[in-house]
């Protein structure tokens, strides 16, 4: 990453207090990502983004200095004019910003774009504002897996930081992947009010689905679908803003859960899951009555919805983004039938995959007692003392009853631990096969660069895109940390400072 020093001088303006995170989201970060030039085919955006916040002072008189710096390719192509003009409620500080904390020094030193401004937040909302900003950055980092996002907060000298960065090569454990299957773009119906206020062009959604964590290399590991997590991104890969769209409130829009023996209900993310990318909607999934849960490892079905906006007359800028988000709820609701149809082509194969897995495991489970009975029958029925002695000694037991028990334990253990090579995850023609994605990417439109999604520091998914910006998706492979917790949660991976 080549770091060029480029300081931007913005016209200072002093206004009243505004909500911190919304200010930063609406202006600085949006301007940065919206201003990025479209990636070349095959290009992955790389770089570092620093958002550092230093709050000093006592209650009622807190003063907050915010530093935003972008280094590496992330800052390439972003013209100075893209960020010119301080946001309302923000005081631009001239000069080279000093590192708010030691952890920020590296990125600051390499940054081409640096922006420092001051504002006076409400002390009562400072904590929640910081949390909201952190979540925003974390969710954005999921679709920019090659970009390091460093968020640092210092309040009266107490520093806390989070980094969402690319995984070190070779450091990920076995099959640290998810395997997103791409759906075909789903055309959305632009509601008349949105069109009336200027939201033109075509609006569509490119869906991608993956089961997380991937247990394909462990075919005998009992699993269960525990949750479905939905993520909604705008055409440049920024999270679509809350509130929760009405469409997402009832999981029945996604699929006929009963057909697969499931029930689903919406779930609000519990407290304490700060290290996780917060989904825009989560559904808890339960098996039908009578189905064993036991020690089954939970998996989450991740559904990514990448909004796409194609308008030959107007680029997707901050204004278009605001219009889109303002009418997003109505747009999704009015496009429900198309969305349901389109998503079922993704969701059903994933659920079928789970069903086939369970059937295979049942087949295996039925075979094990036959094996044990046969082995025990030969050993107990043998008249060769030498043979029986050798068998007992091999299993380190005293008698044939203990041999049967030891063999049963061992057989159960080795079959469950069976591991296949990671390459077995990529079966030709299966969801996630790049050839499938390649085929889909050729369906109309131009090829776009590969997309990658990260759901935590060591979790990413990748594929070839057939959509706009960094959030478009194509068929491909993904990476996920096997430590991902499945139930209602998407993997964490931030490195708390």
């Amino acid at each position, binding site marked *: 990453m080549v770091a060029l020093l480029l300081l931007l001088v913005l016209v200072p303006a002093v206004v009243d207090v505004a909500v911190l995170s919304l200010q930063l989201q609406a202006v600085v970060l949006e301007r940065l990502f919206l201003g990025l030039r479209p990636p070349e085919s095959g290009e992955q955006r790389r770089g570092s983004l620093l958002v550092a916040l230093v709050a000093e002072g006592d209650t009622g008189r807190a003063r907050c200095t915010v530093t935003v710096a972008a280094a590496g390719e992330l800052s390439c192509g972003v013209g100075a004019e893209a960020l010119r003009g301080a946001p309302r409620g923000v005081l631009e500080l001239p000069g080279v910003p000093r590192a708010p904390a030691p952890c920020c020094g590296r990125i600051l030193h390499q940054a081409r774009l640096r922006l420092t401004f001051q504002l006076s937040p409400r002390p009562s909302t400072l904590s929640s504002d910081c949390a909201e900003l952190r979540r925003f950055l974390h969710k954005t980092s999921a679709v920019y897996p090659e970009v390091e996002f460093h968020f640092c907060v210092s309040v009266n000298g107490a520093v806390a930081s989070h980094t969402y960065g690319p995984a070190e090569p070779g450091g990920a454990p076995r099959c640290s992947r998810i395997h997103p299957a791409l759906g075909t773009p789903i055309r959305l119906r632009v509601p008349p009010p949105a069109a009336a206020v200027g939201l033109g062009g075509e609006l569509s959604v490119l869906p991608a689905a993956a089961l997380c964590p991937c247990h394909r290399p462990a*075919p*005998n590991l009992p699993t269960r679908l525990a949750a479905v997590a939905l993520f909604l991104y705008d055409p440049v890969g920024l999270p679509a803003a809350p509130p929760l769209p009405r469409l997402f409130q009832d999981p029945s829009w996604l699929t006929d859960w009963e057909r697969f023996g499931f029930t689903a209900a919406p779930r609000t993310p519990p407290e304490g899951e700060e290290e996780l990318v917060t989904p825009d909607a989560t559904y808890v999934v339960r098996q039908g009555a009578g189905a064993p849960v036991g020690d089954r490892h939970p998996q989450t079905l991740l559904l990514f919805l990448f909004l796409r906006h194609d308008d030959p007359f107007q680029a997707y800028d901050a204004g278009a983004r605001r219009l889109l988000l303002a009418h997003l709820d109505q747009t999704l609701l009015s496009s429900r039938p198309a969305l349901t149809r389109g998503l079922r082509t993704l969701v059903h194969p994933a659920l079928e995959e789970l069903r086939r897995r369970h059937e*295979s*495991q049942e*087949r*295996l489970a*039925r*075979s*094990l007692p*036959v*094996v044990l*009975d*046969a*082995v025990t*029958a*030969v*050993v107990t*029925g*043998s*008249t*060769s003392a030498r*043979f029986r002695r*050798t*068998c007992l000694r*091999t*299993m*380190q037991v005293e008698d044939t009853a203990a*041999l049967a028990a*030891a*063999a049963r334990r*061992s*057989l159960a*253990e*080795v*079959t469950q*631990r*069976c591991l296949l090579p990671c390459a077995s995850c990529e079966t030709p023609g299966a969801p996630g096969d790049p050839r499938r994605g390649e085929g889909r990417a050729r369906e109309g439109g131009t090829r776009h660069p590969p997309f990658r999604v990260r759901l935590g520091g060591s979790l990413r998914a990748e594929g070839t895109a057939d959509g706009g910006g960094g959030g478009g998706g194509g068929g491909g492979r993904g990476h996920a940390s096997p430590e991902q917790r499945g139930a209602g949660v998407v993997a964490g991976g931030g490195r708390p400072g």
Partner: protein
Amino acid sequence: SSEVLEAIENVIQDVLKSLAQKKAPVLTLANRSDWRNIEFKDSVGLQMTPHYTTKQIRSDCPRSAPKFALMLKMLSMIYKMVQSNTYATKRDIYYSDTLLFGSQSVVDNIISDISCMLKIPRRSLHILSTTKGFVAGNLSYTEEDGTKVNCTCGATVLTVPSNVQGIKNLISHAEFMLIVEKDATFQRLLDDDFCNKLSPCIMITGRGVPDLNTRLLVRKLWDTFQIPIFTLMDADPHGVEIMCIYKYGSVSMSFEAHHLTVPSIKWLGLLPSDLQRLNIRKDVLIPFTKQDQKKLASIQKRPYIACQPTWKKELEIMAASRLKAEIQVLTSLSSDYLSRVYLPNKLQFGGWL
């Protein structure tokens, strides 16, 4: 039988050793139906190459675990039968647990795999198969249980014994043996008292594709009497293939070729060239189907045809005409042409290949 018990015990020991080492037990099988594992020797026929490829049947893979389980189940059943000196047919084994085995062909395949894996003939595993072949002619023997059998041509036709290995005291004055493809032709020759009209002979039919016992009997008679063996097949690709099974063996049983093949077998009839020579009318001949063409093309590529130029020529005649004929076509000349003219002439004047 102690060899069988020891072989099975070795398999069980290996399974337990794997479990003790926390590894998934695995059975290794030869790819016995893979042509790449087959070589041709004109003194033996089709046999497995010394360095054959293998496949693993794993106990921890959902796809192969059922087969692994069934193989161990079969081994435990064989172990018990050998210990108690009892026998069972393949059909008996299937019906002992139809739900577990699924189908007769699953049982048959597993038995062949075990026989190949342990390198022990199926008959030594105390598994019998129901024989469908018939034998008649100048032959007598004593079965293992002491029963004396006389196959002299008469009204009764005898089934090929199910325990060929156990027969002894074989006596025959036959000057040749005739293997007949079809039961209908076999019966016709019996009705015409063929065994007694010409020189004394032995007639055998597998009634289509021969089973193991019929092949074993042919081999045993060759080993015992060393008399010429001739085949009488339809002039079609299916008949040629059946003849090749007797002579050179089959791919799936190549691991037992030495006990099942008689490479010196001669092709007596019905030759494709006979159809031309006897001026058989074209309207009684049958055009080739697509399957016939495919089968003939496959046979022509087999290694044992290359070393038989006369057979190769006959197959080329068949391929060129794209017509086939059953032996019964000779009745278009006269009703008893087969036993009265065709066979005696062929045998007397050396009309075999």
